[in-house]
């Protein structure tokens, strides 16, 4: 098979595209169901996010009279496409490794920032004052969490690169291969600060409580999404489902790839995703309240940044 064809398949079928969409929506359904059970409710069916998506397809998309229509309707498309490519960039241990032609860790980090930028653009294109509020909050949050995550990923890249005798490697495939032969970074105390920084970045990037400040529905009425309805809103739901898969599987690839191949690799990966979703999303969002934007900003410039810097320093010293 030609490389172009495999790449296309990776973007649209597995692990990107259709597979990631179904996976992401199922993870969201699992999250809602478990959240309800933890609160002593019955909760929605597991397939609820799919129902929501079908429903949104039946509704009308309204464009505010003052909004810029191409930007307003184009923003969610850009978000979905960037996430489709991003899913195809994350290797799955023992199952799939992306074509180097597609890009490396740096491209992936850029793509991970696209949804936040898309939300900012959407918010400002909608010309709603709440959208503008969401815009400024999203931007503040992004500025706060971007430095820690880049440093945490850098620590992993340095550790792998030095372990392989070089300086630094930005290939996720190499990072996974290194961990498969030397043990997961999850069990390596040197990498714990980086892991902690990544764990703190994760709810902020996914926009869940305590960091769902830009889309807080009780404060800014879902901020950038306020003016969206129907299929356009559905595209945003697709984007966030894909993003959950990207961020979770990036975390798995960076810190805990399983040493299995084939079908067991797939099963193990799915279990890891589900467990991380429950621990990292459901429990966190149920047990905390929403931070104010200034609190979140201060928080990210304190702990995650310190942890990330500490991890880079220790990795350099240890090696």
């Amino acid at each position, binding site marked *: 098979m030609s490389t172009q064809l495999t790449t296309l398949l990776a973007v649209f079928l597995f692990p990107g595209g259709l597979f990631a969409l179904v996976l992401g929506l199922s993870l969201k359904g699992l999250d809602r169901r478990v959240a309800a059970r933890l609160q002593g*409710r019955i*909760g*929605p069916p597991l397939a609820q996010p799919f129902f929501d998506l*079908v429903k949104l397809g039946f509704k009308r998309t309204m464009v505010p009279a003052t909004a810029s229509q191409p930007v307003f309707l184009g923003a969610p498309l850009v978000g979905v496409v960037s996430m489709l490519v991003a899913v195809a960039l994350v290797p799955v241990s023992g199952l799939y490794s992306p074509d180097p032609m597609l890009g490396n860790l740096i491209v992936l980090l850029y793509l991970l920032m696209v949804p936040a930028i898309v939300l900012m653009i959407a918010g400002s294109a909608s010309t709603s004052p709440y959208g503008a509020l969401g815009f400024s909050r999203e931007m503040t949050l992004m500025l706060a969490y971007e430095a820690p995550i880049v440093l945490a990923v850098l620590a992993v890249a340095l550790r792998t690169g030095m372990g392989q005798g070089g300086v630094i490697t930005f290939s996720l495939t190499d990072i996974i291969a290194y961990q498969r032969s030397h043990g997961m970074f999850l069990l390596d105390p040197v990498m714990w600060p980086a892991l902690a920084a990544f764990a703190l970045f994760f709810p902020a990037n996914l926009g869940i409580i305590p960091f769902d400040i830009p889309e807080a529905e009780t404060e800014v009425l*879902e901020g950038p999404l306020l003016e969206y309805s129907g299929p356009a809103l559905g595209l945003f739901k697709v984007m966030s489902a894909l993003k959950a898969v990207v961020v979770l599987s990036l975390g798995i690839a960076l810190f805990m790839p399983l040493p299995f191949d084939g079908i067991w690799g797939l099963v193990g990966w799915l279990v890891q995703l589900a467990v991380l979703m429950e621990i990292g999303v459901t429990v966190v969002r149920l047990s905390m309240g929403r931070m104010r934007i200034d609190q979140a900003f201060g928080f990210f410039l304190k702990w995650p940044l310190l942890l990330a810097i500490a991890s880079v320093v220790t990795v350099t010293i240890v090696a």
Partner: protein
Amino acid sequence: MNMIPDFKSIATKSPWIYRINAGSCNGCDVEMATTALIPRYDIERLGCQYCGSPRHADIVLISGPLTTKVMQAALVVFNEIPDPKVTVAVGVCPISGGIFRESYSVKAPIDQYFPVDVNVPGCPPRPQAIIEGVAKAIEIWRERM
């Protein structure tokens, strides 16, 4: 061709709810919030979700006797909700004005201004009654799809 009705019944499993407070005394609003949010009367099992924006809504719950002051705003918000939508009037206030019925500043009954589909009487109605009202609204919504 047979696929289309199927998708419609799937779609009606996801009604999103929006509340309009048209001058309610808050009794009905508290009941609505508890209906959906507290563990005992879980409305999420019907697939419902409260949404912050009228643009996302499918089922509108209106409470209160529609005071003169709030009427214009309530109508504007109501028109922002994309079709197909269903309107549920919660409490006795929207029907007759309830305890406010003789007041000079009250526009009830609200079905002069809003296309009310389901009435949930009570002052305030019990949570079970509100859930039944929403369930009825879902049936009406299915027909409108």
